[in-house]
């Protein structure tokens, strides 16, 4: 089971990196979304895969039964999902604004902050 998940995580990572290397900002965005999922799956796998009952204390009990799944990786993934979700939402707005304001989604053509032919500093007094 772990091997299968490791391969899946690897495929997700390679697809994400392929997309991140693209020039189009929308593809980069998709790459980031995919990267987030790959990391979440990695966290999930690193907490050991078991087919046990969810870590919720049932009514009438004071503690978890013995064969429950590890809740910590799930808490980590939940936090990571929340964070990557809000980042993705922010980046979505930013990319859209960048497309509107700069008129391109090609990152090579976004040279406003670093213009191509910037003058050299003066060499004499």
């Amino acid at each position: 089971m772990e091997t299968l998940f490791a391969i899946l995580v690897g495929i997700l990572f390679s697809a994400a990196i392929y997309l991140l290397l693209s020039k189009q900002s929308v593809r980069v965005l998709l790459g980031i979304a995919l990267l987030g999922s790959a990391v979440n799956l990695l966290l999930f796998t690193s907490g050991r895969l078991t087919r046990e009952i969810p870590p919720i204390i049932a009514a009438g009990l004071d503690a978890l039964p013995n064969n429950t799944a590890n809740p910590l990786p799930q808490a980590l993934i939940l936090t990571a999902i929340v964070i990557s979700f809000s980042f993705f939402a922010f980046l979505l707005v930013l990319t859209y604004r960048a497309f509107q304001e700069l008129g391109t989604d090609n990152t090579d053509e976004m040279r406003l902050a670093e213009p191509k032919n910037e003058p050299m500093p003066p060499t004499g007094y």
Partner: protein
Amino acid sequence: MNTLIFRTVAPFLTALMIVFSIFVLLRGHNEPGGGFIGGLIAASAFAIYGIAYGVAAVRRALWFHPLSIAGAGLMLSVVSGLISAFAGVPFMTGLWIYPKLFGVEVPLATVISFDIGVYLVVVGSITSIALALEEKDDA
């Protein structure tokens, strides 16, 4: 997107989703659910309303600015954590009171107020992002 059917259904759908989001928020206390997922449901309710009636209508309906809502939620969450200073226990320790309302014992905890804070933060921030995206569509 602005078909008659959608515009007729949207207010009911929004109301239903907000009630459901509060249900999920309160259910999260002992079972799966909670502030984050509840807040997301509420934020999508406002997004639906915005698609049907425009961003200005949502802003009017919300009354407060979404980011002010998020700020209030953040404040509520931190204060829930800080209350434990007065009880002599570390930060973020859950504290409980058991008041009787109409003869029923209702356990209230700083855990719930923290979760309500999370709910408000999510509603506020995600709604403001969704509205920013929808606003650009109109322009």
